[in-house]
């Protein structure tokens, strides 16, 4: 294997040119999605089957390459295999399908209909990647490479014009040019707060210090969000390139990528990318022969949500407990090791090369007045197409959920849309009446939620909003660092109150007490975790007050979720006596003999409302109420 | 600006302990008599020596304090204890080679002679000394 090292920008340019002209670049591509979702579905077996059945010579003979790519985003349908350039999209692929795919669609010219995705609206199978609504309705900027490249192959990234923005930066732009381009693009941080990235960079540049640091925040802690994971796993070089460009603008020489502990694959891919980039002189001393030097180190998190908060993250990089500090002095003045530091989310960093490449005007042309560009969301919950979507800012919630999302998962009354939760534990739940809100930083905040890092959890009428509030509180009680009183003690007490309501022991004064305590926590807490902690409770209280009232006044959980307020009952008319529920019940609470015609009863005293019987009953004969 | 220094001439001491009384009353609080920062010791027959802080430069108490609660005022050369800062580790009470850092168990704090800076600018012990044993000298700043 030839060792490539670029000693100048020209060197780099000519190598990329040669690469693009080579036969390898023109080969057909078999893309096997190896994102976490597809891996869980068995993608490793599929990739191995391809490798076993198509060795190197056979691949050359067929003029194709098999690539393990990052997440295509359509996790719901995994494992996914895409045949390029034709764009044939196969879902739910199993190892046993591989030989058939090779024979019919690779050697042959055929399409295997059973493996095609069926559009739920039309009921028709779709052959092409681009024609699937899920993808067709997206605008991919941050995620443009994911799924198309093998993240472990730097050449794949180069073939998609990777590092071209860096070459352009180093050869034609001054640090000031880069800074003003980012300012003009009006890029806002994708991590949650939506702070103007250009302004952040500018104040860091102005601050006095011995060194400046650049950090990528990959501590994606919001439950229900996994865009950053996909970016780090699927396009690691994109993150690096953005950081190098940013470091050039800031004249920084040291950078860190903080990756949460739950993402081992992201660490692996990023480390590989760092090693490869260093070997090619795209990272390290005198990058591309210039006199600019910058290097990146990965810092692994230890499993603490609060480390997504920038000051806590910096303490964690320093090897300490992740306790936030007051932000009266900004990180841009005193951040990592008390030096001026710019911290941006990985999605923000991966967007930077795109802006440099295509210009600030192009980026500012996307999105809304206040929120430029696109935003990646992880669309999950009770929606048909769960997965990653990237849309222009200003797209409405309805367009996302009923567009790429494909609408609600389940039919019937209980399957109707009830709320969408955005912004993770700092955000809130928006009801059906607000489905037409355009999604951008400011609109969501005004509506009592927030953009957050981009988690979007769709809920239907089988979701109890009081339970959701309790869920977020228990999350925060668990994840609070415990430093300040309002967050540590206040959220704990709030959890106690909401729990009481869920358990049917709520009292008339509870809602007022929640309100009073919330106000104190909102203004009194030290960091953003506490300052936004009451949001999920307040937003559900605002939009779903009736549901709280039903719990308190009528001792009833309308969604049938809160265990203390529900009972399970066998509807004997619907029951066929199969006895599956008997076997499933761990507490032996179901009485009856498994034969047709027998009546089954549930012993309420024994029943611990685990719901196992409901999941196994094929006839829907167990009623919850 | 001038500063004070206390002059001790033990051969004049008659062991009357007026200095101790004056000190204790001066440093009392809320109508209670405080603890004296000055101790008169008997060293022989009819031989007494009043022992009190010498406001040393490079004082051991200053050096040993782990929280920098003891400092010397560069202008007056008086060594002060910042009671708010002190964490009562007692190191200074041992470190002073002259035994002039005292601990008051009632007030739970360490204390030392501060030349009565908070009580007018004339040390009470000297004021009440009936002999020339304790006296005050005013020196111009910068003088040794």
């Amino acid at each position, binding site marked *: 294997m030839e060792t490539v090292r670029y000693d100048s920008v020209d060197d780099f340019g000519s190598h990329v040119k040669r690469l693009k002209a080579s036969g390898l670049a023109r080969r057909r591509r078999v893309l096997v999605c190896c994102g976490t979702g597809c891996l869980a579905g068995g993608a490793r077996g599929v990739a191995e089957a391809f490798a076993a059945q198509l060795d190197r010579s056979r691949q050359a003979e067929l003029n194709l390459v098999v690539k393990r790519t990052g997440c295509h985003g359509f996790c719901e349908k995994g494992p996914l295999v895409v045949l390029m350039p034709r764009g044939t999209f196969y879902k739910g692929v199993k190892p046993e399908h591989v030989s058939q795919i090779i024979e019919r669609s690779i050697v042959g010219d055929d399409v295997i209909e059973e493996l095609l995705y069926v559009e739920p609206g039309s009921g028709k199978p779709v052959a092409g990647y681009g024609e699937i609504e899920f993808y067709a309705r997206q605008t991919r900027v941050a995620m443009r490479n994911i799924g198309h490249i093998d993240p472990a192959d730097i050449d794949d990234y180069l073939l998609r014009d990777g590092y071209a923005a860096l070459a352009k930066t180093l050869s034609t732009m001054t640090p000031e040019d880069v800074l003003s381009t980012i300012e003009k693009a009006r890029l806002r941080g994708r991590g949650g707060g939506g702070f103007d990235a250009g302004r952040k960079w500018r104040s860091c540049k102005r601050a006095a210090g011995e060194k400046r640091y650049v950090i990528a925040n990959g501590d994606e802690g919001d439950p229900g969000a996994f865009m950053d994971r996909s970016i780090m796993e699927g396009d690691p070089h994109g993150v690096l390139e953005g950081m190098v460009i940013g470091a050039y603008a800031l004249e920084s020489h040291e950078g860190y990528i903080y990756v949460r502990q739950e993402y081992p694959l992201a660490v692996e891919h990023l480390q590989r990318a760092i090693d490869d980039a260093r070997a090619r002189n795209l990272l390290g001393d005198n990058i591309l022969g210039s006199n600019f030097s910058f290097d990146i180190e990965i810092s692994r998190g230890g499993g603490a949500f609060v480390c997504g908060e920038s000051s806590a993250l910096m303490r964690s990089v320093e090897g300490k*407990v992740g306790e936030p*500090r*007051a932000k009266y002095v*900004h990180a841009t003045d005193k951040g990592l090791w008390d030096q001026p530091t710019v911290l941006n989310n990985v999605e923000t960093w991966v967007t930077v090369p795109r802006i440099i490449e295509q210009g600030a005007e192009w980026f500012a042309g996307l999105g809304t007045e206040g929120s430029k560009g696109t935003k990646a969301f992880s669309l999950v919950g009770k929606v048909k197409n769960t997965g990653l979507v990237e849309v222009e800012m200003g797209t409405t919630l309805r367009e996302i959920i009923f567009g790429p999302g494909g609408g609600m998962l389940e039919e019937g009354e209980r399957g109707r849309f009830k709320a969408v939760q955005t912004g993770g534990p700092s955000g809130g739940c928006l009801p059906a009446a607000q489905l037409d809100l355009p999604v951008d930083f400011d609109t969501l905040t005004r509506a009592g939620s927030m953009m957050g890092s981009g988690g979007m959890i769709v809920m239907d009428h089988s979701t109890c909003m009081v339970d959701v509030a309790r869920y977020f509180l228990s999350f925060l*009680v*668990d994840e*609070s*660092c*415990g*430093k*300040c*009183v*309002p967050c*540590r*003690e*206040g959220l*704990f*007490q709030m959890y*106690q109150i909401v729990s009481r309501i869920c358990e049917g022991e709520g009292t008339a004064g509870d809602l007022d007490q929640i309100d*009073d*305590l919330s*106000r*104190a926590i909102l*203004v*009194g807490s*030290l960091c953003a975790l506490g300052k936004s902690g009451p949001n999920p409770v307040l937003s559900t209280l605002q939009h779903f007050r009736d549901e709280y009232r039903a719990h308190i006044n009528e001792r009833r959980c309308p969604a049938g979720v809160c265990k203390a307020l529900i009972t399970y009952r066998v509807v004997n008319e619907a029951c066929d006596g199969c006895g599956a529920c008997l076997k499933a019940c761990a507490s032996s609470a179901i009485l009856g003999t498994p034969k047709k015609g027998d009546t089954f009863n549930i012993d309420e005293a024994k029943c611990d409302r685990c719901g196992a019987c409901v999941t196994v009953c094929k006839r829907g004969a167990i009623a919850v109420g | 600006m001038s500063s004070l*220094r206390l*002059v*001790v001439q*033990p*051969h004049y001491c008659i062991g009357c302990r007026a200095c101790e009384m004056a000190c204790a009353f001066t440093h009392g609080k809320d109508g209670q008599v405080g603890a004296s920062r000055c*101790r008169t*010791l008997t*060293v022989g027959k009819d*031989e007494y*020596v009043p*022992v009190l802080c*010498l*406001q040393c430069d490079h004082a*051991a108490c200053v*050096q*040993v*304090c*782990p*929280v920098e*609660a003891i400092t010397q005022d560069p202008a007056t050369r008086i060594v002060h204890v*910042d009671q*708010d800062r002190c*964490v009562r*580790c*007692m*190191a200074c009470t*041992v*470190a*002073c*080679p*002259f*035994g002039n850092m*005292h*601990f008051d168990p009632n007030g739970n704090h360490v204390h030392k002679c501060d030349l009565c800076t908070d009580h007018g600018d004339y040390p009470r012990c000297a004021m009440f000394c009936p002999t020339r044993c304790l006296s005050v000298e005013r020196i111009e700043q910068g003088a040794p």
Partner: protein
Amino acid sequence: MEQTGPSSFNITINGRRVEAARGEVVLQVARRAGIQIPTLCDHPAVEAFGSCRLCMVEVTKEEWKGWKGLMTACLYPVAQGLIIETDSESVHHVRRNVLDLLLARCPDSELIRRLAAEYGVTRTSFVQRENPDLCILCGLCTRVCETAATSAITTTRRGHDREVGTPWGGPPPDCIGCLGCAHVCPTGHITFEDKGLTRTIWGREFELQRCSDCGKPLPLTRDQVDFLARRQQLDPSYLSRCADCQRRSVAQTMGRIARWHQLGLVQEEAEVAQ
């Protein structure tokens, strides 16, 4: 952060104009002006921490067009034109809630009960902690230990499970028994005992240093003496005699000089100062 502009200026606290210097925080300036702001986690010996949230004050500036924010006085840097209210309704609302929450945590703490009562809370409106102790988690002990001693104690776990403790809950190996933690503890949660030559704190026993003259125990442990001599760069002999013996020794020396005077051996008056 304000890095330019004059180094001292006036700010307004409760309608009063008060002088402040760049680099100071609101709490410092207020205290100097005799304006009381309650605190629990503040101590001059350690860096400000901002955990108790009791010192919150309302901050605004004329150019903020009516926007006001609640800030912790112990951390908020002063800047020209700041207008501070230390006792507004919103300030009291937060303090009342904080104290109410702390009262649920530490119902037996005299200090918390007294402070809470000042803000009108005599009984907590929340669920009282089971088996409560006196620790309010202000973190003063661990911070003092870090600043003045050896970081022998730490906060452990997180969130509502947070506690102050020692490695593996046992006697802390790095502790020097200086009692700094116990003395700064505002609620008396940290206890210790000195008995004969033994000091006990954090479940560990320490031997007290003995006076090299009289043999009585000094108020310092042997570990503390070693630590201080090393860290403060002081000859250990400075830490070997009790104050009584030190005084006796100096008195005897001075007594000798006095005798020389009386015998006419010394011409000049001995000045024992400077």
